[in-house]
Each structure stands twice: as structure tokens, then as C-alpha cells.
């Protein structure tokens, strides 16, 4: 699930397994850094990979588990729900941006949208820690603040990468579904209670 910009001659065809693993791990790490400090750059778009989105999606889905993990009836719906929402949402946004005439490929768009879930995953982690304290209005305000900040961060990060690929008069039309997508995920995070 990886693309490369460099031309592949026999040197990379015959490289050692360790080199391949380290190269891919470094690429994933670099993309996470890019999401945390969004700058206009092409790295996320050129060398796409779907490892980050998979890890983030599984982590988020596991953290959104309600009740005990052992009970199958409780755990099932939330995990499937989150998984399906994230992947179907990302595919729909990608189709939308392609139909609007954007020159971004399918997997690149999935890559960007998936990696920009990182701030919301951090928000989920913080919310779970905050929920260990007593519930109350202060608790809720803290969680609301954290979720809003991370939501804004996700939007800024993803539009920094995606907006360039659209024709100028269609930028708002392309960004609006991204806004909705992260809003739905933020809503799921905010309304999560461990009961």
C-alpha cells in the first residue's frame, strides 16, 4: 500500500528486508509529523500509504468501545460503526473530489484523510483520561474544548493538503464534506461515555 517517487532499478529490487521495513516505517513516521505540524508540502500526496489510516482507525475504534471488551454484544456495534464510517466516509469524499474535477488520485486522498484523523485520535485519548475523573459540567467543558481544538487542527491539516488539488472556484465544495466527516467523528468522540 505504498507508492514511491524514486525510480526502481535493481538496487531497490534487491534491497534487504530490513531496509524495506525501515524505509516504510520512516515514511509513516514522517507523515505523522507532517500532520502534527501542517505545512504546505507534497510529501503526504506523493508517497502515499495506508498504514497510518489503518492504525489510527483501529485505535480509534478500539478506544470507542463501550462496556467491557469481552462481551461481544456490546463491543461489536461501536467497532464496526467507527470502521465503516471512517472508510466509507473517506471513499465518499474522495469520489466527491474526483467528480468535482480534482487532480488527486483515489489513494492519495484516502491517505490524507486517514492521516489527518491523528489529532482526533489524540483527542479521544485525552477524553478517555479525563473521563476517569468525576463526571460533571467541568468535565464536559474540558472535553468539549479539547475536541474542538483537535477538530480544527484536523480540518486545517487536511485542507492544507487537499485544497490545492481542486480548481479555485470549487474549493469550498470540496472542503465541506471533509468538514462534515471530521465533525461526525468529533461528535462520536464527544458523546462517548464509558457506561
Amino acid at each position, binding site marked *: 500500500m505504498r507508492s514511491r517517487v524514486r525510480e526502481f532499478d535493481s538496487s531497490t*529490487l534487491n534491497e534487504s528486508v530490513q531496509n524495506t521495513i525501515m524505509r516504510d516505517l520512516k515514511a509513516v513516521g514522517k507523515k505523522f509529523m507532517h500532520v502534527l505540524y501542517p505545512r504546505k508540502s507534497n510529501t503526504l500526496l506523493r508517497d502515499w500509504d495506508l498504514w497510518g489510516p489503518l492504525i489510527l482507525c483501529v485505535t480509534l475504534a478500539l478506544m470507542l468501545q463501550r462496556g467491557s471488551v469481552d462481551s461481544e454484544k456490546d463491543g461489536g456495534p461501536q467497532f464496526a460503526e467507527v470502521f465503516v464510517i471512517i472508510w466509507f466516509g473517506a471513499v465518499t469524499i474522495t469520489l466527491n473530489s474526483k467528480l468535482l474535477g480534482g487532480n488527486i488520485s483515489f489513494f492519495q486522498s484516502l491517505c490524507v484523510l486517514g492521516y489527518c484523523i491523528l489529532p482526533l485520535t489524540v483527542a479521544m485519548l485525552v477524553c478517555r483520561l479525563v473521563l476517569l475523573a468525576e463526571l460533571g459540567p467541568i468535565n464536559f467543558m474540558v472535553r468539549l474544548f479539547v475536541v474542538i481544538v483537535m477538530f480544527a487542527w484536523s480540518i486545517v491539516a487536511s485542507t492544507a493538503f487537499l485544497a490545492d488539488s481542486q480548481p479555485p472556484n470549487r474549493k469550498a465544495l470540496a472542503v465541506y464534506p471533509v468538514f462534515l466527516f471530521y465533525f461526525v467523528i468529533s461528535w462520536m468522540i464527544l458523546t462517548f461515555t464509558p457506561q
Partner: protein
Amino acid sequence: MLQQDSNDDTEDVALFDAEEETTNRPKKSKIRHPVASFFHLFFRVSAIIVYLLCELFSSSFIACMVTIILLLSCDFWAVKNVTGRLMVGLRWWNHIDEDGKSHWVFESRKASSQESKTVSEAESRIFWLGLIACPVLWVVFAFSALFSFRVKWLPAVSLVAEGTVSQCWAVTAGCSLLQAVVVMGVVLQGANLYGYIRCKVGSRKNLTSMATSYLGKQFLRQIVVEIQRCRGPVFATASE
């Protein structure tokens, strides 16, 4: 005398050749990358085993599904990036050029004279067997998941009979997680299968197209020569 000598020489040479053949054959069918071969099969087979036996492994349905998802992803990465190029010298990837257009590249290692670069028979057999058998199994699982409920969900189905929406959602979401995992298995392993078949067909097509064009030219040349040679009698019979 000379003939006898040459006969002795040829006999010696023949024996030498026979020895070399027997020593060469095991080399070609020896497994040169045992670790890669092991991992090629390990991830695929263990994903299938966990899927079939998830009740035995853990009472948590989610843990089983997450394990299968992780195994399928590792298998996809390993087969695409490592075992393909080590075992059969094929590789496929996606390349995005300066204009932002994406190209799919299917590459195969050219046959070289070096012994270490040729493909060994045993590895090739293991590779293609694992590559083809497992997606077929996942497709079978997809059909069976589509048409039958798993035994786990029978208690949930009886709750659905009471008619609450949340329990309906529990059954459908649970079934959909199972089907999502099976679909993921089919898609990931099918993608690898498709990519490698295209690599293989691509390399073969170059050879066959070259061969057919060369043979075609030779054939045409022969026909023209024959016609020119037989021009007299052919025209004579035609005019009759």
C-alpha cells in the same frame, strides 16, 4: 585410434555433463529464502485459521477481528514488498509523477546469467500456490458469510424478535464487521494476486509479441520466396 580417442573424450564429457546436471537440478529447486517462504505462507494461513477457529482462541469477538485485520495487513505488505521480489523477482507498485497522475507499474526481474538471480522452482511453486489458494478461500468465506448467520449471533437474533432498534443494529453491525473483515481479506489478497498476474503476463507478453513478430516476418518472407520460385507453374494452372 583417433576416433577411439575422440570417443573416449566424448564419453568423458558425457559423464561430466550428467554429473553437472544432477548437481544443478537440486540447486534450482532448493529454497533459497526459507524465511521469506515461511512468512509468505504464515500470515495468510494464520489469518484463515484465526477466522475459522476464533471461538476457540478468545471469547472476545473484537480481539479476533482485530487480529485478522492486522494479519491481513501484514500479509499484504509482506507479499507485495518482500516475498514477491525475493521468491519470483516480480514487483508492482504505484508511481505518481510530477503532474499528479498515478501510474501502476508492473515489473519483473530480467533473466540474467547469474545463478543467484534465477528463480527456483520450489519457491515459485510455493509462492503461486499461496497466492492463488488463499483468495479463493476468502471468496468462499464471503459467500458463506453472506448466506448464513454465524452461531454466535443466534442469541442476538432472538433478542431482535423483541423488536428494539438497538438490538437490530447489534445484529446487523456484528454481521457487517464479519463481512467487512472477509471483504477486506478478499480485496487485499485479490489485489496482490491481480498485481502479480499482471507482472507475469506483462513479462511474458513482451517475449511472445517479439517472438510472434519475428516468426511472422520469417513466415512472410518464406511465402514470398516460394511464390517467386513457383511463379511459372502457378500462373500456368490458373490460366487453364
